[in-house]
């Protein structure tokens, strides 16, 4: 009797959020899928009552669209270097802070602080820093610094440059730097928690066993940090695949779409040119990209839960 009552109460408590999530998350995903398969690419289509199903036409058009292809490459390279940079820098900072040298507590807080700043603010500030100014007479930001230091060779167009190596637009470099600056402190915090959870005697056992500090790190500590690295990749990865505010505030699409991202294109299609169907198609593609990253994570953490 009592168990039954508890089940009913449990359901009642969970019900409002279940309903809300069902409508506002899954309902809207479903709605977006529906829109992405319609011809709602102008107001008039809707007004004239010609709103109808067109299958995958919007998706096919997107993959024939040079701008969207550029966006996908940009996302790929941005994600790749952003993850590498944040993980490497976060790990190095965590190891340095973990040595417990004087002042490491202070540095820990300093490194972590950028996380408290909104991406929009980060984007605006780094946008100023990497604004090239007028080359060569009136450089700004870092270019001005280089000029003052007599390092004219390093003066460059930064995010306004259309230089590229293959499909990698070099204009993404300043954006990647800004993103790494913002997130490496967070990665450090994750690694630091991981490092501190490794029992000291394991490290000591390795030292007695004959390991140098270098070997202790690479053969004992780093493998034990694998779950942290995995979590960091997932968390940073899903931020990176959906990145909008940082790029939008810092550079926008850039000349020739060198810093354009799917999210910016989606925003412009949907809210600047009323092509709701095409914009929805981008939204669904982004959702699928993130799902590829998130679902393995959910599965593995669910397995972990079951094992406990």
């Amino acid at each position: 009797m009592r168990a039954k009552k508890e089940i009913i109460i449990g359901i009642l408590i969970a019900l409002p959020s279940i309903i809300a999530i069902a409508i506002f998350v899954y309902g809207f995903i479903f709605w977006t899928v529906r829109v992405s398969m319609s011809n709602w690419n102008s107001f008039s289509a809707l007004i004239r009552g010609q709103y109808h199903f067109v299958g995958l036409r919007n998706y096919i058009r997107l993959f024939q669209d040079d701008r969207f292809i550029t966006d996908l490459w940009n996302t790929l390279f941005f994600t790749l270097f952003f993850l590498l940079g944040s993980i490497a820098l976060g790990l190095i900072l965590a190891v340095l802070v973990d040595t417990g040298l004087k002042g490491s507590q202070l540095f820990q807080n300093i490194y972590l602080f950028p996380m408290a700043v909104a991406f929009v603010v980060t984007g605006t500030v780094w946008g100023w820093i990497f604004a090239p100014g007028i080359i060569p007479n009136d450089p700004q930001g870092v270019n001005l610094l280089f000029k003052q230091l007599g390092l004219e060779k390093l003066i460059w167009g930064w995010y306004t440059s259309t230089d590229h190596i293959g499909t990698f637009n070099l204009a993404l470099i300043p954006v990647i730097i800004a993103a790494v600056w913002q997130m490496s402190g967070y990665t450090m915090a994750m690694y630091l928690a991981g490092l501190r959870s490794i029992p000291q005697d394991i490290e000591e056992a390795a030292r007695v066993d004959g390991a140098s500090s270098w070997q202790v790190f690479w053969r004992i500590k780093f493998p034990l940090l694998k779950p942290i690295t995995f979590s960091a990749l997932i968390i940073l990865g899903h931020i990176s695949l959906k990145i909008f505010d940082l790029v939008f505030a810092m550079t926008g699409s850039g000349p020739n779409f060198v810093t354009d991202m799917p999210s910016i294109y989606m925003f412009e299609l949907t809210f600047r040119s009323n092509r709701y169907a095409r914009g929805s198609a981008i939204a669904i593609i982004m959702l699928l990209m993130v799902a590829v990253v998130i679902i393995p994570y959910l599965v593995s953490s669910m397995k972990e839960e079951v094992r406990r």
Partner: protein
Amino acid sequence: MAEVRLEHVWKIYDNGVEAVKDATFTVEDKEFVVLLGPSGCGKTTTLRMIAGLEEITKGTIYIDGKVVNDVEPKDRDIAMVFQNYALYPHMTVYENMAFGLRLRKFPKAEIDKRVKEAARILGIENLLDRKPRQLSGGQRQRVAVGRAIVRNPKVFLFDEPLSNLDAKLRVQMRAELKKLHHRLEATIVYVTHDQVEAMTMANKIVVIKDGVIQQIGDPHTIYNKPANKFVAGFIGSPPMNFINAKIIRGEGGLWVQTSGFKVKVPKEYEDALADYIDKDVTFGIRPENIYDKMFAYAPTPENTITGMVDVVEPLGSETILHVKVGDDLITAKVDPKTKAQEGQNIDLVLDMERMHVFDPETEKAVI
């Protein structure tokens, strides 16, 4: 040949705490030395200094005749077994045991031979592919020991290795470690707070209290001739009885006079007590040297005392009596067939050959 020698070794932490004070002792080749003391006495710190995990503030440590004060742990040719085993969680049992050999670039075939040999000795051959988290406490313990023995080091260091095992397993591992010591002919330094482990396994015991070595000796000496009141009380269970007493000259020689009884000092101890006549002393006698008069072989009026039984604790193989004699409560370990009943009087016989007397000021043993 692997000898460990500590000469006037001190450990003083940055906050001024003196963890180890002027420790000097030698671990001979193939010797099993136990560092014994209550928790926080500095025994683990001493072991960690031998391992090189803790810096030495003052003094010198020699391993094999060489000063190792500034030698890294990895270059000391030692192996250590930790209290919490400290197995590498991401490696299998095999990899855990092979790790030290791999770092030292042993050939694969040699590593395989040594790991399998150690696994066979320890009876963990069927566990080689498991990860530490899939093992029980006793199995982890064996792997930790295995990791140490594959390296065939000069010295083995054990830091309370049995304290996380349940009582039954502890007894079993105790015997196995002792066997292993004979088999490997290893030099072992072993830290514990358990006097039974020390008594059963050691060739030599170093008793430590508050960072100061109290006594160094073989188990027999430590038990029979404790150097001071601390050692006397720490070794033995139940602990030795300590009773405030006075040495007086009486009929036929010297007597021990307490608040509740008077017993005669054996002739051979009289010289040693000459300076203590008519002075306060601490009289010590172990519970196992006190007998129920009914089962004593040589009761005389000179070694018999009377008291009132306070508590009877039958243990099966023996019975512990807590007996009120004058102002003192005396513990006696007597024959289990004793008729002693709580609240009734009993006659106890003291084996005065095994009496101890301590100076009440210095607590040093007089007898």
